[in-house]
């Protein structure tokens, strides 16, 4: 295979190009500060015979995505920060009705109106389903422009494979920063036919896409069915990166852009003779529980570093099995820790 050229580009452009190459044919979005570059770039989908619609708000955008996805299209929408809250109902409907879709959320700080600074405070909402009943979303977190492209490209296959929405949590820095990256090759094969979708029908029964089950026992049947599906997803879609964990005394656990900063902290610490390692979850749900247990088994301490008040700590404590080893360092409100800051914190747990 001929080597692919690396091109310098922002994360937002890499995400858009990867989506289009993966066969995304429909985009519905509402222009918001944090994801405005994705929203703008995505307009080029119409040059590839795709459909691009400006919705009147985020709730309408996810509803349009639900409609197009129910009709069998590969669909994407994007949102930033607190806007994700407006989409939870639509995502819940899609999860319950088993409709695939890709949502790109740019993590931005703020309780309400979106700011321009980075944040990872959507972790809890995203990984616990965020909607209603017992739904889950596959949640992926890139830490580089290359990974943003790769995960976006893969997300459409994951969504179709499991008939479930996929959420890519790209914090604001990953979406804005520029790095060289290779874009994935355009998908040659058409996406799989979806016999369950709605639309013009020739020789099939009518299809009903619903998450509403009113008959006694029907909803329980559906929730356990989805529960089993989520177990299968957990067994097959967990992703992570481990860096120098083998002999690490202190393992840093961080995702997204913080994972990049933590990796630098590991390198700086190692130069000083400190045995540091990094475990970086790439899938936030399913959380790579088995892998983190394995790679932190010998560590004396685990330091979770996040851009929030410690939303991943419980998952790490549960997975590693010894919560007394788990410690936390966080920055919030848009602030980002430096590698020295993380290193200084890690020093507390080394001998």
């Amino acid at each position, binding site marked *: 295979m001929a080597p692919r050229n690396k091109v310098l580009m922002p994360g937002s452009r890499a995400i858009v190009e990867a989506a289009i190459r993966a066969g995304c044919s429909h985009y519905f979005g509402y222009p918001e500060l944090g994801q405005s570059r994705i929203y703008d770039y995505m307009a080029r989908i119409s040059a590839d015979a795709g459909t691009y619609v400006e919705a009147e708000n985020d709730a309408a955008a996810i509803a349009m995505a639900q*409609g197009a996805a129910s009709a069998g299209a590969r669909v994407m929408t994007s949102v930033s920060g607190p806007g994700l809250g407006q989409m939870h109902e639509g995502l819940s409907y899609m999860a319950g009705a088993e409709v695939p879709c890709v949502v790109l959320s740019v993590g931005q700080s703020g309780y309400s109106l979106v700011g321009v600074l980075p944040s990872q405070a959507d972790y809890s909402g995203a990984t616990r389903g965020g909607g209603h009943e017992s739904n889950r979303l596959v949640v992926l977190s890139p830490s580089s422009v290359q990974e943003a492209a790769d995960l976006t490209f893969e997300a459409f296959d994951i969504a179709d494979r499991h008939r479930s929405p996929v959420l890519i949590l790209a914090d604001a820095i990953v979406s804005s920063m520029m790095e060289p990256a290779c874009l994935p090759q355009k998908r040659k094969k058409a996406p799989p036919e979806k016999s369950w979708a709605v639309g013009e029908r020739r020789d099939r029964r*009518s299809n009903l896409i619903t998450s509403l089950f009113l008959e006694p026992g029907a909803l329980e049947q559906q929730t356990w069915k989805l529960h089993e599906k989520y177990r299968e997803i957990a067994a097959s879609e967990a992703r992570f990166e481990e860096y120098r964990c083998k002999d690490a005394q202190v393992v840093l656990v961080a995702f997204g852009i913080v994972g990049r900063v933590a990796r630098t902290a590991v390198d700086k610490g190692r130069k000083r003779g400190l045995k540091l390692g990094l475990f970086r979850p790439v899938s936030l749900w399913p959380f790579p529980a088995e892998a983190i247990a394995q790679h932190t088994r010998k560590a004396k301490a685990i330091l979770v570093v996040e851009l929030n008040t410690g939303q991943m700590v419980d998952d790490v404590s549960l997975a590693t099995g010894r919560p007394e080893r788990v410690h936390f360092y966080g920055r919030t409100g848009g602030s980002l820790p430096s590698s020295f800051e993380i290193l200084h914190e890690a020093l507390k747990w080394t001998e």
Partner: protein
Amino acid sequence: MDGVNRQNPSESGPQAPSPASRARPKVTSLTAQELHVCPGGGHAPVEGAVRDVLRDMELASRAVGVAPVACALVLFESLDVDFVAAPPGRAPAVAAGVKRARPGSVVFTFQGGPDAESTGTGDVLHAAARGEPITVIHLALAGDSPRGKRHAPSPPLAELVAAVEGAAHVERVAVSDQDGLEELRIALRRAFSVQTERKGFSFVEVTTPGWVRRGRRAGCLKEPEAS
């Protein structure tokens, strides 16, 4: 999974009621499910009119209904076309998404009372403003919806939609007898034709009784005291 398991339309299934004036052909767009609608609410005749028009215009095989909440959801128990259940108020947006993905399909929403007048007023107006080539069917209830009486005033939806430049066809029909039902069928035919002829957004508002709660009696309940 090919959608939710449905019972296939039965060739010997229930016949539509026959007006004395003419014989009706055998129904082919009904399923064999039981219906769950409130007595006297006016839903069933409207549903029947939609069924009749889709059948007469031979659109059933490419029709996609989008139903949000309450009574509208029972539509997909009885009408044998593709359906998507939408969140409250979001049916026009979901319908727009379906239509954009499958432009050859005939996409309609079926929304009762508060769904379009309250929760989803913005969605209806914006779909009209964009000229989405869908058909919105709105049941304007004179009485209650299953959610109970709403006390807040609602805007006059049909008038609002008619004022939007992108709306191609807006019509209101009152249904309380057979003549009204025939007018409704004509209005639905016009609305679906606007869609099939690619003329844009169509809207039909149907005034129906809504749910008449049991135990309520007509008559004067209180009079002013004689001075």
